[in-house]
């Protein structure tokens, strides 16, 4: 019971992990399992930005780049080799290497935070431009076309290492993604408790002070950035595995905006918040696209133009409004907002009980 007191969230997450791995698949339909697989993948991607931005203070506006590189590297390699173990590894290592180079450029150049954000966004735009211009069969690497707008379809599922005939089915993909998600969560929790993690967070709090103590902030940021890229790359691999395809949509600006929204809404400085926000927002977006919304008949006519309410449930509009509302009113995100609200009530209650003691 003392473990529950000291680390309540760890115990809860562990319990959830058990539930999702052992209980949920027994009681739900296959198509829901399939949806949950991709939700798990997105939650993992959210964790990567939560680590880099929420804890590390690095506003990476192009986190989707590492997701996309991971997915594409996996796709191209698996089509060439037919076996998935090396491609998975490459899908993690190549984004990390790229992040290391880009990070070296940025952090050792002591580029200011906002310029850094714009550079990362620019890099994602570069990738998008490059990939979509590869339509047509002449763009291939080995046996795999790069595919331009259409992407690369027909990817075989991940197989048991060494045995290309033993491939994952729907349930296998689910188990893999869920287990990776929870392992990533616990892995990041562990990392944040190590000296490396504490220093990385202190850099977010006060970089100058951290350097005065004697830590090289540039190296820490670089390492954190690379680790985040590896997690994003792994999520990209799992995404390609889930759908059996990869396409340049993972590099476009909408997708990268969504990742930012997950962390912003979920809360900077928490892990659970972004995970939940990713799932909730993904669910919301798919529901909006669903036939259900076309049932909504409300609307009005303005200047001869018919404006239907269901059109305004367009995901851009919803996302945009979320961004604006959150930035103006809930800048720290939902989880910290709720947490602060609770602790406000507690200290308020305590102050009322202790009234008469000197103000703090």
């Amino acid at each position, binding site marked *: 019971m003392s473990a529950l007191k000291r680390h309540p969230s760890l115990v809860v997450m562990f319990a959830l992990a058990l539930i999702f791995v052992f209980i949920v698949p027994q009681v739900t339909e296959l198509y829901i399992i399939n949806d949950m697989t991709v939700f798990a993948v997105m939650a993992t991607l959210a964790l990567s930005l939560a680590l880099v931005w929420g804890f590390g203070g690095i506003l990476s506006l192009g986190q989707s780049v590492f997701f996309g590189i991971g997915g594409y590297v996996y796709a191209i390699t698996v089509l060439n080799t037919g076996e998935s173990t090396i491609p998975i590894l490459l899908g993690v290592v190549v984004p990390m290497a790229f992040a290391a180079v880009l990070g070296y450029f940025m952090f050792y150049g002591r580029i200011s935070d906002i310029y850094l954000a714009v550079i990362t966004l620019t890099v994602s735009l570069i990738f998008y431009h490059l990939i979509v211009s590869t339509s047509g069969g002449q763009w291939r690497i080995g046996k795999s076309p790069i595919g331009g707008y259409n992407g690369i379809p027909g990817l075989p599922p991940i197989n048991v290492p060494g045995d290309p005939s033993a491939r994952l089915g729907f349930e296998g993909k689910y188990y893999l993604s869920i287990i990776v998600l929870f392992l990533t969560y616990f892995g990041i929790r562990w990392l944040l408790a190590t000296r490396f993690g*504490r220093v990385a967070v202190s850099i977010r*709090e006060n970089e100058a002070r951290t350097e*005065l*103590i004697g830590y090289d902030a540039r190296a820490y940021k670089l390492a954190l950035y690379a680790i985040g890229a590896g997690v994003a790359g792994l999520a990209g691999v799992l995404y390609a595995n889930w759908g059996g395809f990869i396409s340049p949509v993972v590099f476009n600006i909408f997708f990268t905006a969504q990742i930012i929204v997950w962390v912003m809404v979920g809360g900077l400085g928490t892990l659970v918040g972004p995970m939940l926000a990713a799932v909730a927002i993904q669910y919301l977006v798919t529901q909006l696209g669903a036939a259900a919304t076309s049932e909504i008949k409300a609307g009005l006519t303005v200047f001869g133009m018919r404006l239907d309410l269901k059109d305004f449930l367009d995901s851009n509009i919803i996302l945009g409004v979320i961004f604006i509302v959150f930035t103006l009113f809930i800048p720290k995100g939902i989880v910290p907002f709720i947490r602060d609200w609770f602790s406000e009530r507690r200290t308020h209650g305590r102050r009322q009980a202790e009234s008469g003691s000197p103000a703090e």
Partner: protein
Amino acid sequence: MTAILETRDLSKRFGGVAAVDEVNFSLNDGELRCLIGPNGAGKSTFFKMLCGQLKPSEGQVLFRGNDITGAEPHGIARAGMGIKTQVPSVYDGLSLRENIMLSAWRTRTKRDALAIVEDLLMKIRLADQADRLVGHLAHGQRQWVELAMVLAQDPVLVLLDEPTAGMTLDEVESTAALIRDINQTYSIIVVEHDMQFIRMIAETVTVFHQGKILAEDQVDNIMRNPAVRDVYLGKQADRGA
């Protein structure tokens, strides 16, 4: 006596103005030195060049015999210089213990670091507030936390920029006692304005004026030095003497 810190013709120019003008400074091992001077005299600029926050225009800074001119701040810190800045630079969002721990942990294992943190918390007499967020502390207390962080680094030389700014008289006296205590182990350079505080701790004082060293002597001699009085102490000495 060996010089632990030396500058040779150290200068910093901004546009056409020399904030620090070919200063030759030297501090002996184990010494406690105060740097004083009116605003704009160049002592803050000098300080920042010592700790790597500003790159000099000319000249050299030698620390323990090594040339550290223009080195990165974290490198200078690792070389043994502990720095407390003018505006308290601490982690407001972390607890006292976490603040000092970050510093102590750099050169030790976790267990040793935790022990040092407890020692230092008692030294600055804030052990009972160890889990409070530093941002909630009073100004003077935050200065002490920063001092503890500096000591946790195990420095050889400690640089303090206006450590008593904003403190009450009681706090100033405690700080003076703390600094005298620290001086038994470390060399110290203190930049200060408060003459009362300087009298409590100082032996040798260096006076800056217009980017150069005007005088360098024992406290009492400095107070009586007519050039210094003209430039800086004028009104204060009459009041304080």
